[in-house]
């Protein structure tokens, strides 16, 4: 074991320079190859492991809206639930994992943007989220981002959602950045911050945890548009099949049920003007 690791270390150290030189120019060909790696008998799907209500690993079971959509889509692609291998894909690693073929599909609150389209492909959207606020259940003073002037707002490190509020709505907002949203909710229930901000469905997932039920609520006044898509390696041949699966899910009631099961407990209702969404055609 040790010698194998040492050998791996040597090789890796040797490859250090090579990889550093070449990795800039090959995002195009890195991805699609691994889809059939297991002979087509399993599919590796990237989800969040730590976002209750969306993608959460609880022992050996996976729960959340993203997970339910992933299971439905995988089923339409011809995979049973046993053939799905869920892999954690944190925000910072999503593009890398697709480019390296570590996952075949990603369902992880993955917003479709032009920069990301440079390196990966998307199907969908399967949900349109919007930036919103989570506030104490008895708070009636905050109904939108403009009300945050002089108040304390929490968001996670490295996300610009809080900065957007400061720049566009209320310049006098005090920002607290934390490693995760759960820390933010702790500060919110302790009364040291007045609101938590990120995509509404993520907030709804947090508000649906039994421990938080009745203590916090989603304001329900989204002020941005985040199109959650299914990430896949660039120019994957699965795009059309995934799009068809999403269209079917939106039509047969399974989509609504997944939403109600996972984030319904918070009383959250998604932005009705944009949901259910219309999946875009594959390019």
């Amino acid at each position: 074991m040790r010698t194998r690791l040492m050998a791996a270390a040597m090789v890796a150290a040797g490859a250090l320079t090579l990889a550093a030189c070449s990795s800039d120019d090959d995002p195009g060909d890195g991805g699609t190859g691994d889809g059939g790696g297991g002979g087509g008998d399993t599919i590796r799907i990237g989800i969040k492991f730590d976002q209750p209500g969306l993608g959460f690993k609880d022992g050996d079971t996976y729960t959340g809206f993203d997970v339910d959509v992933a299971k439905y889509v995988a089923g339409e692609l011809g995979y049973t639930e046993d053939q799905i291998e869920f892999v954690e894909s944190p925000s910072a690693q999503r593009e890398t994992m697709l480019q390296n073929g570590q996952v075949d599909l990603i369902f992880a609150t993955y917003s479709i943007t032009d920069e990301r389209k440079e390196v990966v492909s998307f199907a969908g959207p399967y949900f349109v989220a919007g930036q919103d606020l989570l506030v104490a259940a008895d708070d009636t003073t905050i109904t939108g981002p403009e009300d945050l002037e002089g108040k304390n707002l929490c968001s996670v490190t490295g996300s610009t959602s809080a900065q957007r509020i400061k720049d566009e709505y209320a310049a006098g907002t005090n920002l607290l950045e934390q490693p995760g949203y759960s820390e933010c909710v702790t500060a919110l229930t302790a009364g040291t911050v007045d609101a938590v901000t990120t995509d509404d469905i993520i907030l709804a997932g947090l508000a649906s945890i039994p421990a938080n039920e009745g203590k916090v609520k989603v304001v329900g006044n989204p002020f941005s548009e985040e199109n959650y898509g299914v990430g896949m390696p660039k120019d994957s041949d699965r795009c059309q099949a995934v799009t068809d699966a999403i269209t079917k899910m939106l039509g047969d009631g399974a989509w609504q049920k997944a939403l109600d099961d996972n984030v319904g407990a918070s009383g959250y209702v998604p932005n009705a003007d944009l949901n259910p969404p219309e999946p875009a055609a594959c390019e």
Partner: protein
Amino acid sequence: MSGSVLFDAPGPRARRRMVWVNLVATIVVAGIGAYALVLLNEKGQLDAALWKPLFTANAWQNFFLPGLKQTLVAAGLSIVTAGIFGFVFGLGRLSASRTVRWLAGGVVEFFRAVPVLIMMVFFYMALPRLDLISPPDVPLVSVVLGLTLYNGAVFAELVRSGVHNLPRGQREAALAIGLRRPQSLRLVEVPQALIAMLPAIASQLVVILKDTALGAIVTYPELLSAARRFGSGNGNILQSLVIAALVFILINWLLTRVAEALAGRVGRRTAGRARVEAPSMAVETATS
């Protein structure tokens, strides 16, 4: 244990004064602690509902114990490989050949400088392209490689400075009985240097163990991320982190103990009464 050369055993008056000072200090510390608990209680952080989920089978079977296992696996592998790396490059820095010294020095200074997290992410991105390791092993290997390179460099530096601080007589005696320089280093100087540097080395072992937590960013499912995950799912992140911290304190304390015991054995195996000569004032680390 009691006989430090730094001071006389305190007399009756000094002892009485100590008792009073201890009493006052204890009361002050306990008072601050109690006040903090009262405040925390007012904020509801001591509610049973937040603590209870932590003492269920689910919490330990599905979160803390699997996380702890992953932490120990990564730390164990990294300690061994970093130890080898540090020993090799530490000797390299003490080599008689200028080229070897210079090369080893360059490697050590570089890997001490690059943040571990960035190394881990780099390996995580680069390894799959080489296709040597099956994808599920990539996070572990990335974590171990990152920890090995950084901590190995730190160990190398400790070996070097430990040897430099030894009395010159040690090497002179080794050479006088006919050992070559590499033999003198390996058999006489480095073992003593390790004992002198033991507190710093023990610190570094603890750092390795805790830095496995950085692996969370490359999806390595270690203890701290398991605790965070449990805390997010149950709305008790602070409580969950307290438990994780306690587990870390416990295993790190055990690890330090093991390191000290090992060093004690090395100490007995080296040339006679090494400890009397160099690291004589080790107060807490002396094992006998």
